[in-house]
């Protein structure tokens, strides 16, 4: 949404991100997509080659995109194994109870925040 506001004001934007479905749904003007675990959209930690390639792609897309919604997917991989894809927000028979507790705690905290005035009007 911030990219959209900037573009409307005449500032060209590019998002470097790893959650393509969310970015596309939001109507993001230009996207450089790294299919990596969430947390390091520019590239693997301490892999300056990968990070520099992502930055080059972003700078390039700013100037080459011809229409809104342009996506450039980079070929970067996290590892030879694809196992990491199962980790994020995994729901397993072992963590079901823990997730419910997490939800209860989160709802309790939200109420507490409201009572204490910790919310944006």
């Amino acid at each position, binding site marked *: *949404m*911030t990219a*959209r*506001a*900037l*573009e*409307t*004001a*005449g*500032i*060209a*934007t*590019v*998002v*470097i991100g790893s*959650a393509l*479905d*969310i970015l596309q*749904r*939001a*109507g*993001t*003007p230009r996207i450089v997509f790294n*299919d*990596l*675990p*969430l*947390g*390091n*959209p*520019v*590239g*693997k*930690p301490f892999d300056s080659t990968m*990070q*520099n390639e*992502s*930055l080059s792609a*972003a*700078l390039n897309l*700013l*100037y080459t*995109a011809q229409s*809104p*919604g342009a996506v450039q997917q980079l070929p970067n991989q*996290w590892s030879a194994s694809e196992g*990491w894809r199962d*980790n*994020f*927000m995994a729901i397993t028979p072992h963590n079901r109870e823990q*997730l*419910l507790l*997490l*939800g*209860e705690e989160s*709802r309790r905290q939200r109420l507490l*925040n409201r009572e204490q005035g*910790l*919310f*944006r009007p």
Partner: protein
Amino acid sequence: MIRYIERTKAYYRAQGFEQDYQWAMNVETPFSRPARPLKSARITLVTTAVVEPSIPKPIRTAKSYAFSDAPADFDTAELSWDKITTHTNDRESYFPLQALNARVAAGEIGSLAPRFHFIPTEYSQRHTRNEDAPLITEHCLTDAVDLAILIPL
């Protein structure tokens, strides 16, 4: 490719939340071409990584900071990223300031803007749309920014 919307919905349902989060959806997309060639353009960064963790998450709002005040390590503990697989100990992996500075020094990019910008990951689309995004846009216009790279964790 991971379908994050589906996965997030399932995850929060498993936590007992009854209503799914409504992800922002827009059909039309605004689009501006860069006002200047890269060699003379002024660039900035927009991040969701937290500069001031002392401000409680529910009341964090968008804020702009001098690049010289960028923390060596932002606080990312409260953000939703893959904490099993990776880490955020390398700032360049989500806030490539050194890489940008190198390109400015090499003459590839005109200049770095005086400020970068923090946008909180907000549950409320209204806060982002009506308050945070307009504030950051105003600051970017003040700073005569031509290009913005946004990097949500």
